[in-house]
């Protein structure tokens, strides 16, 4: 698969997420759209990681070089990064949802348009 396919797919998912944030008023949905955007980015990172891995191994094979651990490890940073994004996303969701629950408790709504003041 050409990498551009994955890039376009990720961009499409990302844009859908943005449109969701722009058009919806429900805080939870907006939150979910943000998760969607994060996932789009994750997908892109994994695709790039795979691309670099493939390229490195192929280059080594073409030049008849021994395939070392370092070459096999090429691109693993991308996946590790995705891992950390997931970790942060999970932490973010815990706090974010707690805040939304709090907000619902106070104003009995999750409409972000009601949240246009810094104080109540």
């Amino acid at each position, binding site marked *: 698969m*050409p990498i551009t396919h994955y890039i376009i797919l990720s961009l499409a998912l990302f844009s859908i997420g943005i*449109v969701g944030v722009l058009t919806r008023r429900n805080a939870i*949905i907006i939150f979910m759209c943000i998760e969607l955007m994060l996932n789009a980015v994750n997908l892109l990172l994994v695709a790039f990681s795979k691309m670099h891995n493939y390229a490195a191994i192929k280059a080594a094979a073409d030049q008849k070089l021994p395939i070392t651990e370092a070459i096999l490890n090429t691109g693993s940073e991308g996946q590790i990064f995705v891992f950390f994004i997931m970790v942060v996303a999970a932490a973010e969701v815990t706090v974010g949802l707690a805040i939304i629950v709090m907000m619902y408790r106070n104003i009995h709504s999750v409409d972000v348009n009601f949240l246009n003041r810094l104080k109540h």
Partner: protein
Amino acid sequence: MTITITQILFWILSVAALFSALMVITSKNPVHSVLWLIATFFSISGHYILLSAQFLAVVNIIVYAGAIMVLFLFVIMLMNLNRETEPQKNRWIKMAGAIAGGCLLLVLVASLKNVESASTIEDVKGGDVGFIKRLGKELFSTYVVPFEISSILFLSAMVGAVVIGKKE
């Protein structure tokens, strides 16, 4: 021209991902949105497997589908949000949002025009970068400090959530 099963799966998963992502933002009912989002995550996990990132595929399901989205569902169910609870937004604003998002996509895709599309992603022998052994070694050697720090982040997020969620 041969079509490999990978290509078929790619197109199926892509369509599924895009369709369910669209459904996420168009569904009136928040619960439906959550379920469509889970479907999106599953399609993305499928993509991960296609990219031989098995570990991330499974973690994606466990973390996102199994934990994060359950939380969302919990919150929505406890708040009893139905389609009536979300007042309709101004149609023009919706249009503006959709157009802006579309423009962004267009511009981003257009900017790809000059990219050399020679880079491809194929499965190669020994390309096991997404396998748990390799990632695990990398994670616990090179990235052990961020890993430990992220555990602290988790702990603080947990404490924060408990503190925020507690009734005064």
